[in-house]
């Protein structure tokens, strides 16, 4: 079984992550998921690739804390967070978050909270590679 929180260069399978989440408890009645993927267009420019840099040890530690915080805050039965680093192209997966709870409201709210918090707390940076040159991304609200 793969770890519930991971940073990896390779792609992930949403089905495998959801199966692992469901396998943790048969009391789970709702699962909320978020899939972040790479756009091939940004700020009026074509984007050929997106390159990620991370403070790896801190990013993993913050993601683990984030999962624990979400489980406690929303009373989740389980949660999973996977973030890719390295280089991805338009349409590729970047991040997957899944929250499992007894009921849908906690699952959906926790999922939204985790992706918002991840953007604030986890030291990962993305650089867009375009025909006009490379540029580090300024965070969106």
């Amino acid at each position, binding site marked *: 079984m793969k770890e519930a929180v991971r940073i990896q260069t390779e792609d992930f399978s949403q089905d495998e992550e959801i199966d692992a989440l469901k396998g943790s408890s048969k009391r789970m009645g709702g699962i909320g998921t978020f899939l*972040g993927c790479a756009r091939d267009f940004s700020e009026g420019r074509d984007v050929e690739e997106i390159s990620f840099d991370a*403070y790896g040890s801190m990013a993993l530690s913050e993601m683990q804390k984030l999962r624990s915080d979400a489980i406690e805050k929303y009373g989740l039965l389980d949660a999973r967070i996977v973030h890719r680093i390295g280089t991805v192209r338009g349409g590729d997966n970047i991040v997957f978050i899944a929250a499992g709870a007894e009921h849908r409201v906690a699952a959906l709210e926790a999922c939204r909270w985790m992706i918002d918090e991840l*953007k604030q707390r986890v*030291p990962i*940076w993305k650089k867009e590679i375009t025909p006009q040159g490379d540029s580090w991304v300024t965070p969106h609200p």
Partner: protein
Amino acid sequence: MIKVLFFGPIAAATGERETSAAFQPGLTLGGLRDTLAAQHPEAMRLATMMAVNGEHARDMTLQLADNSEVAFMAKFSGG
């Protein structure tokens, strides 16, 4: 010695991912930042986030221990 880490846009601006700074008793996070800002003014203007030994640090008066690992980081853009 203090280990100083740069990532993403700050590493691009400094041209290096890691450097070191001499430890002195009483050295604060803010003092280290000022020293680095003199060397890398453009890069340190981007440094809105800091971490000491892998934990978020916001108190610029925080006294650093010898052999600390300090990261100066631009606003995150993961996800």
